[in-house]
């Protein structure tokens, strides 16, 4: 009984830490990014779906406009937007997984590794996966408009991961990066 209580308390503490960590993740647009690193990510086909498009899909303004129409039309609208939001979320996840895989491959070639940075990155990745599942569930149960805030946070973390990878690319030896580029194969189909 005592063991169960301790386990439950430990689990609740872990959830609290994770929640506080998630609250600290910015949900607004990212700051200026190194152009060369962004270009490298693009040449490796690691292009994130548009954040603006994600915001458009879950736009409350559009829902309010359709609210003046019939119930059937409103339902049609929500069904359509759910389908597109699932596609967008899948795209974001695919891009993040690719970027993290590349990061892991690149960091193995690096002589200097900062444990704090690596732990934060790993925590970001876990947080992203968790938030992504919550966002998808919320979109499915309710609709994209209801999941607006959490979707914004999902993209915020995805952005942080992309930024970390860009930072690594800048720090990498150019000859190492040149060796990695042709051998690194990003999947052609997004799944």
């Amino acid at each position: 009984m005592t063991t169960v209580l301790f386990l439950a308390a430990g689990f609740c503490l872990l959830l609290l830490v994770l929640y506080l960590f998630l609250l600290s993740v910015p949900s607004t647009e990212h700051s200026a990014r190194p152009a060369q690193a962004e270009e490298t990510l693009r040449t490796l086909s690691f292009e994130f779906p548009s954040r603006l498009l994600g915001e458009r899909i879950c736009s409350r303004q559009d829902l309010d406009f359709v609210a003046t129409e019939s119930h059937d039309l409103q339902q049609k609208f929500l069904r359509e937007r759910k389908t597109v939001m699932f596609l967008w979320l899948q795209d974001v996840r695919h891009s993040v997984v690719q970027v993290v895989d590349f990061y892991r491959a690149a960091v193995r070639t690096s002589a200097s590794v900062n444990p704090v940075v690596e732990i934060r990155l790993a925590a970001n990745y876990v947080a992203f996966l968790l938030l992504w599942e919550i966002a998808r569930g919320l979109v499915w149960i309710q609709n994209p408009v209801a999941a607006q805030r959490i979707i914004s946070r999902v993209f915020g973390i995805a952005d942080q991961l992309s930024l970390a990878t860009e930072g690594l690319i800048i720090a990498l030896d150019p000859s190492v990066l040149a060796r990695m580029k042709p051998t690194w194969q990003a999947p052609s189909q997004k799944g």
Partner: protein
Amino acid sequence: MPDRVRRLDVAEAMEDLQERTLAGLPCELAKLVYLASTRDYNSGLYYHDGLSFQYTSEVADAALHSIHKEVFQKLLFIPLENFVGNLEIFFCTSHSHSTAVLDVWKKLEPYRVVIPQDSDAVSREFFFSNVRIALAILERRQAKSAPQNQQSALLPQ
């Protein structure tokens, strides 16, 4: 006869197209449909007689392609209300009756071939989704206004 010197400036060709051709079109959707009509379905290359006279075919293709993408992006990011407005204007300014045009758009789905070739899947599906919703809204509005039109016709003159 000496060869004409054709300009190589894509930006200039784009400006030319905007001012001479696209400015006369009533809405962004009309521009999108027009730009798609300049594209060869087999090769995916864009052709425009007016532009080809002043610029090389590569420049004309690049200019038309760029503007096509710009117009598509604009339509992706406008509010749904404005999108419905665009569709309404486009139907009203077509040569056929708007009810007939709406019917054709529902059955044939011509909006599927008016988007840029290199659009990503999410943008594509979002655009198609908006068109479907807009068509449904316009159809309902037409159905609502049809009985009112019949009643007006029955009133004594």
